[in-house]
Structures are given as structure tokens and as C-alpha cells.
């Protein structure tokens, strides 16, 4: 704050004038202040993203490549051994990152596109349109989503496209409710009214006036929703209607290796086999939640006590 002169001038007016910062400096400050949990979370996410992107380069073998020795022990040739038909577990873990995480990201994005757009539209147009959509969402939410997804996948067939669309539509109901709830608080603001008075269309009001102001809760929800989608894909794969063989994915790898746990009394090492993909799932879920928690804390406006 600078000491002003005694004559009044608009530019010299004090108030909550703060230092001017660009997006990048803001980001740098935020990152510097981030807690260690968030940093670990980000590190793990970057690692997963890297593995998923460069899977063919990192993996020593192909995901469907079959070797003559099934259930090979851990060795320098097969780092995590081979599975029941002789495929390299390590390579399948790496390809699994690509399949499982890739599908989860696509599904979550689609869910947010559908749920977000409809939620915003419902918040702006509170007439019969809102009523119709909201009641439809209530109906969809009344059915347990895992069972509903199972039924739909059995009807339409478990292709990857069907999987993505069905889970996205079922999950978009939650996104719809959140978006509508937070957007309603923004719609009543004067600047939205000012945009309407100016004669702006629905698209502009949705994208430019409301969306930037409801981003924090949506991003936080994105992280959580991603975990749930991830878990439902793993669960569906475990049940056999998710990602189909020979594509590797962590959910079905857990299922295939789970049977071997009964031999644990002869070879303690087999216990680790189903646990490896399970750990991969758990680790990513925890990492995403670390980052989301930090983000939520940052945007909730809670001041640190001094």
C-alpha cells in the first residue's frame, strides 16, 4: 500500500489492490505451498501418465504375447513372472495402465461433458426443462449403478465403446446434480443478469460467465469421479463384462491371479501376484485423492491460522 496524497484520484485509490500476477506465477506460488501429500500424489499421477503414454516403448513384451511357460517364477527374464497362459505379467501391468486409465479418463471426460452441459442449461433455464431433466436423473440414480451397468453391458455387448458410453451416462447423473447445484448460485449474480441484458446467448452465458466460476468444485469432483469410474471399470472387468481379453487391464488381472492364492502355503510369492494390479489401482486412487484434497482445501478459502 502506498501513501497517497491528500487530493483524491481514482488510480491512487487504495483498497484491496494486490500485486498483479500472471497465471504462471500464481501456479508457481501454489505449487511451492503445496503439502507433501499433494506432491507425492502429483508425482505418482505423472508416473502413471508417463507409463500409459509410452507403454509400447517401456514394456519388454507385447500384452498378448504368449510364452511356453505358464506361471513362470519371478526372474530377470520375466520380472513379475508369467500368468496362467504364459503372458508376461510386467508387460501386462504396463499395458493395463494404458487400457484401464485411458478408458477411465475418456469415460470421466464424457460424463462431465454430458452432465456439465445439461446441468448448466438446467440451472439457467429453471422451467419445465430443468424439471424434466432432474426427474430423469432421479430415476437413473434410483438404480444401483453397478447392477445397471452390468445389465446394460449384457444387453449391448461389452465393447470398449459401449463400456465408456454406459458408465459415462450413469456417472453423468452425479455430475449433473453437482453442476446444477453450484451453477444456480452463480446464475443469480448481477453479472449474469448484465450479460442477459446485453443480449448474450445461452452458450456464451454458460461458457464464459458461469463455467469459470464453478470450476473449483467441478475439478475436485472430476478427481473423485475419476476414482469411482476407475473402480467401476475394475469391478466390471473383475466380473467379466469389462475390458475383454486379450487386452490387459488391472481388474481382470486381479481376478485371474486371485485363484492362485490358495497355493500360498507352498509358495508365499503367489500372494503378491493378485496384489500387484490391486496395488496399482489403490495407489492411483490414493494419489488422485491427495491432489483433490489439496485442491479442495485451497479453493474452499480456508485461511491458515497464524
Amino acid at each position, binding site marked *: 500500500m502506498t501513501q497517497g496524497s491528500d487530493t483524491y484520484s481514482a488510480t491512487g485509490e487504495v483498497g484491496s489492490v494486490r500485486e498483479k500476477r500472471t497465471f504462471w506465477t500464481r501456479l508457481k506460488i501454489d505449487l511451492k505451498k503445496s503439502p507433501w501429500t499433494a506432491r507425492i500424489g502429483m508425482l505418482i499421477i505423472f508416473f502413471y501418465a508417463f507409463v500409459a503414454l509410452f507403454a509400447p516403448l517401456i514394456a519388454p513384451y507385447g500384452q498378448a504375447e504368449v510364452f511356453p511357460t505358464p506361471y513362470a517364477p519371478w526372474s530377470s527374464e520375466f520380472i513379475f513372472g508369467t500368468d496362467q497362459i504364459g503372458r508376461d505379467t510386467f508387460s501386462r501391468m504396463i499395458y493395463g495402465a494404458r487400457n484401464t486409465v485411458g478408458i477411465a479418463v475418456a469415460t470421466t471426460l464424457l460424463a462431465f461433458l454430458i452432465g456439465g452441459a445439461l446441468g448448466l442449461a438446467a440451472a439457467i433455464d429453471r422451467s419445465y426443462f430443468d424439471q424434466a431433466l432432474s426427474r430423469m436423473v432421479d430415476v437413473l440414480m434410483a438404480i444401483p449403478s453397478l447392477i445397471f451397468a452390468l445389465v446394460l453391458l449384457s444387453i449391448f455387448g461389452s465393447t470398449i465403446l459401449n463400456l465408456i458410453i454406459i458408465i459415462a451416462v450413469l456417472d453423468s447423473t452425479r455430475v449433473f446434480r453437482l453442476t446444477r447445484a453450484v451453477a444456480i448460485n452463480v446464475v443469480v449474480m448481477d453479472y449474469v443478469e448484465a450479460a442477459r441484458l*446485453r443480449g448474450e446467448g445461452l452458450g456464451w452465458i454458460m461458457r464464459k460467465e458461469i463455467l469459470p466460476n464453478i470450476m473449483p468444485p467441478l475439478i475436485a469432483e472430476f478427481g473423485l469421479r475419476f476414482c469411482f469410474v476407475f473402480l467401476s471399470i475394475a469391478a466390471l472387468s473383475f466380473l467379466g463384462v469389462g475390458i475383454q481379453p486379450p487386452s490387459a487391464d488391472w481388474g481382470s488381472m486381479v481376478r485371474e491371479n486371485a485363484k492362485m492364492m490358495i497355493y500360498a502355503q507352498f509358495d508365499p510369492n503367489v500372494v503378491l501376484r493378485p496384489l500387484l494390479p490391486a496395488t496399482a489401482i489403490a495407489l492411483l486412487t490414493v494419489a488422485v485423492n491427495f491432489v483433490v484434497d489439496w485442491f479442495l482445501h485451497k479453493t474452499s478459502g480456508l485461511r491458515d491460522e497464524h
Partner: protein
Amino acid sequence: MSIKSEKGEVLLDIKGLEVEGFSDEKWHDIVKGVDVTLRRGEIMGLIGESGAGKSTLGLAAMGYTQPGCRIKVGEVNFDGVNLVKLSDAKMRSYWGNRMTYVAQSAAASFNPAHRLIAQTTAATLRSGNFSKEEAYGDARELYEALNLPNPHNIGERYPHQVSGGQLQRVMTAMAISPRPDLIVFDEPTTALDVTTQVEVLSAMRRIVENFNTAAIYITHDLAVVAQMADFIKVLRYGKEVEEAPTRQMLSDPKEAYTKSLWSVRSLKKKEHQGGDSILSLNGINASYGKAKVLYNVNIEVAKGTTVAVVGESGSGKSTAARVITGLLPQTAGTVEFDGKALPKELCDRSKEEKRRIQMIYQMADTAMNPRQTVSEIIGRPLEFYLGMRGSKKTARTIELLEMIELDEEFMQRLPSELSGGQKQRICIARALAAEPDFIICDEVTSALDQIVQEGILKLLMRLQKELGLTYLFITHDISTVKAISDQVVVMNKGEVVEQGQKTDVFKPPHPEYTELLLSSVPEMDPDWLTNLNVGRSSG
């Protein structure tokens, strides 16, 4: 309950107080070394613009700081005890017992889930000195003393069942109930209409006098502080500018800054007759759902003039603006703009019709998208209405910024990086960007400090002269009306009570409601409230 000890003894003695707050990764000084001496039975007025540290000092006088703030150095001696040194647990025996606080927004300060009387007496009962019957009985007496309607039963209501002015008085009762030695009033009447404000002010003053309580009265309204305070302290940038007894301060301020505060009220405008009519409301009726708000409203606005619409909240003045803009279609009557009838619904109006009528809002904070920069906010109407793009748009934006006395440096700022007055200026620039003929100003200055208000009003007048604009100025502040209007429309309960040229409206005789409204506006004369109360009770 007995009256506390005699007048004259020093109750509060603050020495070299410095308070700092944490923001932007740094500690900033908010209060920079202020001394206060307050005796029993005295009221100190604390004035200054926002950001001067008034509220922080008021709270620090109770030994309290807001989260994110701390007392750096200094002493706060209350009745001989230095509050800065006390533990939180010890402090709690003072708060709500020997010192109380009346906040600006009573509506936001009450717990909606409890009855008023329970909240009024909560602190009193906690002290353990009184039984519940005693405290409740006393609270009812206080309600009566504060002129609350139905004082014996009003305590049984919930906060949402009484009006804002009544709630503010209940809060005063709450502050008095434990018979404190010190009360801090933080802008207690800012949110109220003038007619309600008068009642609350008289009630507060009477109570403070009766119980010989010391008080700190924080406000930015000079006329109000003139009625309340024994002496006035002016703050700026966290430092004391000057302190003097009220009468002396009003008649003979020493410092240049204080003089500039005093001069704000001298703003006057020469009255215009105005030419052809640009806007006329003919027999407008409007309603929100089943509730009727406007009854047969006729308003005539001449080109190039300022028409002030005056009235209390609920008088329908903002609704009239919504009808003009098309946000609320009228149920009867027509709105004529420049000789042609405007379509009722906003979506039926052409882009050109929308462009020519612009609006500026009361709360600049909520009228600008917090995620857009100044250049986006001002640039959008340029692009939308006039099809400007690229360097042409940038050049025009800078031109507009200069027109509102800001400069290029503000282009990339977000609204949160602006002060209150600057925000309102940006809103004015956004309206100007559309090159309108007619601007509706909805209470544009009521959320601002007086010195900033004056700047905005001067700007609006200058722009009117340069660009030939017509204003419809909605306000409840009579001094603003006196300063800028050509014609005045007085509204009450959805009807136009009186309208005409400014001099005619302000010249007696008045209709009953105009009389009440005009006489309720505080004047700088320290005897004004006393005289008014004498006049009203005898008449």
C-alpha cells in the same frame, strides 16, 4: 440492575497499538500506532474511508483480532487491565459481559434457529449474575426502551420474522443486556433506510446515555457521527489524522484530509429543464407472481437530464428499472423509448434497443465476473454491439479507461485486484462501451465511502455533459439526489408520491411521505437529532 459508576473515569486506554494482517505471503500493517483514551459515558466516533483500519481498531479495543490478523505491539488497557497480555480464556470473561459488539449486518449476525430473546440474553445468562427470569424481564424492558413494537412478545419471534431495522435494535438490546462498560458499534445503520435509521440512532443514543456506557461508534457517514459522538477521531491508512470534540471538528477541522471529507456534501449541480422526452412509463403495473409491486406508475424522462427516483427499500424503484430493461415484463401500460414503444420481453427487443439502454448496478462486486479481466469486461460490449476486434478494440478500451480516469495499467487486472470505487468505474466504462443514450444507475454509490462517492458522482456528471447521456438515478440517499438530479420522483409502496423539478420537490409544502423522508436525512448539525425528536414527539 444498577447503573454503573460515575462519568469521567478513564475506561479504555490504548497506547501505540499496531495491528497487522497476513495476505499475499506477507504481514501488512493495518493499524499503525494509534492511541485512544475513552472515559465512561463517552462516545467516540471513528471515521475514515474503507481500508483505513476502523473496524480493526474497533475490534482491537476489545482485545480481539480477526482470523489472519494479530496485535504486533501496543497496550489495550481496559479498566486497568492490559488485554493484549490476557489468555483467551480470561478474555472470554470480558467479551459479551463487560464489552459487547454491534455488527454492521444484523441479518447476518443472528442465528436463524433460535428465538430473539434467547439470543439477546445468552451472554447475560452465561455470566451467571442473573436468573433467567431477571434477564428475560430486563430484555423485554430494553425492547420497550428501544421502541420495538409489541415488546413483550417480540422476543418470541425468530430473526426472519422481524424487519432489518427491528433486528438492528434487538442487536442493540443484546449488546446492552449484560450492562457492559464498553460497546463497539461497527456501522450499525449503514444497511438501513433513512426513516428507520433515525429511529435506531435515537434509540441507541438514549440507551447509551441512560446506562452511562462508553461506546466506540464506527461509521463513514459524517452526519451520523455528528449526532452520536462526543468526540471524533479521523483515521487514514491506519494512522490518526486528527481528533477533536464533535462541535469543534465539524466547525473547524484542522487537517486537509478532514476538510476534504467535509467538503463532499457540498457537491451541487445546476438544474436542467431538459428537451424532448426520451423515455416515458405510461400507467405501468407490475407484479412478482401474485404480489403486485407497481401501481399505475407514470414517469417522464427528458433527454440529457438526470431523473432521481427516491424511496425506501420495497418502494418499487428497482422494479421500475427492471420493467424498463425488460427483465420483468409489465402487466399493464407501456414503456416508450425515443418515441417508440419497447417490447415487453427482453428477448423480443432488438440488439439496437438493448444497446441504447444500459444499466449500472449497486454492488460492483457482483456485477463483474470475478474471472474476467478488465479488458475482457469492457471489451465484450465493444465486440458484441459494435463489432470491434483486435487493435481497434484495445485502443477503444484504453480510451474508455482514460475516460473514467483510470489508465492502461488496469487492463489485465481482475476485479478482486481493484478497490470499490475502481470497480464501480469499470462498471461505468462497461456501460459506456455500448455507446448508450440512457443509463439506469441503481444505487451506484450507496456501497461506497463518501469521498469515493463524490468522485463517482463527479465522473457521472462530467460524462453526461460530454456525451449527452440521460440518467435514471435510483437511490435512497437524499444528499445524492440534491447533488446530481434535475428532476425527482418520490416513490412509496409501488406508487409515485410526487414528481417534478428538483427545486419544486424540495420546496415545501410536501406530501406527508416526502416530508417524513426529507426530515429523516441526517444533517451535519450535532443538534439535529435532538431537535428532530423534540419536534416529532410534540407534533
